[in-house]
């Protein structure tokens, strides 16, 4: 049996006296688009910081394709592509220079990297801009470059932290559709953090998080049925209001 692309078990993390994450557990299976849905301040970014090992949780476990992050961080990180909420490109370098830098960090030989960069940019309609400085690109194009970069090393798991923040509607839709396409055609597992319900498709899996706790976990249909709601918007508000009450 194949290990889940991401498995989180009993993860807790606190800042001072309060809990930012409290006993969080869920899985992302291969080929599955999982939306991590939560309002601002729910704990999504803290969870991403732990999944990407920017910092380490004292309690709980994170496994990527069966590899425990705490024991084998480099092996686990090698299987993961990451798009952070904040832009992380070098503005003064060209698109191609940025991608070569990332390829080098993943140990990809220069010739192989050049081929992969060409293909990745082609797929995202960015091939003609590879010599442009990132500073000259608009927000949507920068996001596409970051997505191309996250896929260069052919990861099994792609994690994205609110990747459409600040984008206009067509750019947002383009990125959402492209990532769904990756799940369908390449069997990639995706964890997509968002507070925008319209980014979640009917056949996706959804994990609802609020105040550091998981409130719901399952397919969109199942989560709606369990909460006796007609749609995900209703489910989401019902769950959040229950916690507030």
């Amino acid at each position, binding site marked *: 049996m194949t290990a889940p692309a991401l498995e989180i078990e009993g993860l807790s993390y606190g800042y001072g006296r309060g809990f930012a994450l409290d006993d969080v557990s869920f899985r992302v299976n291969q080929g599955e688009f999982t939306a991590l849905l939560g309002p601002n301040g729910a704990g999504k970014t803290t969870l991403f910081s732990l999944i990407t*090992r920017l910092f380490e949780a004292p309690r709980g476990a994170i496994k990527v394709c069966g590899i425990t992050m705490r024991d084998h961080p480099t092996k686990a990180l090698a299987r*993961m592509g990451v798009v952070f909420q904040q832009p992380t490109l070098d503005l003064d370098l060209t698109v191609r220079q940025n991608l070569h830098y990332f390829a080098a960090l993943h140990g990809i030989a220069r010739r192989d990297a050049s081929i992969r960069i060409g293909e990745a940019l082609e797929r995202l309609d960015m091939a003609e801009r590879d010599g442009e400085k990132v500073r000259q690109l608009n927000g949507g194009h920068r996001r596409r470059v970051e997505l191309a970069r996250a896929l260069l090393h052919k990861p099994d798991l792609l994690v994205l932290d609110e990747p459409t923040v600040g984008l206009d509607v067509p750019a947002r839709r383009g990125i959402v559709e492209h990532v769904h396409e990756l799940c369908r055609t390449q069997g990639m597992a995706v964890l997509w953090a968002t507070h925008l319900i319209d980014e979640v498709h009917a056949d996706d899996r959804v994990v609802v998080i609020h105040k550091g706790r998981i409130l719901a976990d399952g397919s969109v249909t199942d989560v709606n049925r369990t909460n006796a709601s007609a749609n995900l918007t209703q489910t989401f508000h019902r769950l959040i209001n229950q916690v507030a009450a």
Partner: protein
Amino acid sequence: MSPHYWRALQGIVTREVLRFLHQRERFLAALVRPLVWLLVFAAGFRAALGLSIIPPYETYITYETYIIPGLVGMIQLFNGMQSSLSMVYDREMGSMRTLLVSPLPRWFLLTAKLLAGTAVSILQVYAFLAIAAAFDIVLPPLGYLLALPALVVSGLMLGAVGMLLSSTIRQLENFAGVMNFVIFPTFFLSSALYPLWKMRESSVTLYQICAVNPFTQAVELIRFALYAQVNWEALGWTTLALVIFLGAAIQGYNPARGFMPRRAQAE
């Protein structure tokens, strides 16, 4: 070194050099600062500051010649702080995350980043030495070559100071204050501009502070290397300071115990 490590090191150094070359103002500032000291300050103080013959010099030298190693150290000190500033900026802007989530041990990533910053500082140093030579301030030919290993050690040590600072500074706005508190005392409480025996004549306490200042040791290491000699004591102290500062910086960026989780809490 495995191919992965080697490629990552190449990538990190290439990125740092490219960024430096793209930022022409930074390149210019890096050269103008020591040149002003060399061509203006030194000319003004030449008469006021008499120098005796002390190792590694075997004859009387001009004041301009004396302060060359100190100004080389100054370039590396400023570059270390500049790298530290860019690390704080990268962290605030997010690009530091790209480095830290790479599938390589964090100590290696930080050391590679340090090497990259040192490579940039050495480019600046040789550009400065070339301009100084154009003004007839020349050193023994072999010294230019033999100074290279010393520049690597001193550059790494001063870069490690910057890296340690970057792991403790929470916001970019706090950086200017740190610059004033670190750079100027470090530079003036050293042998960069005057030999330590002159300082001892004025104040024994200040002399003792100057003597234990790692920057003094770095400057003396460079000074001797420029005259094809090894100052073992300076090499030992500079290396020790490098190990301590780098170790503390790596600890500062440790995902479990370091400053990053505390910073996230502040955010």
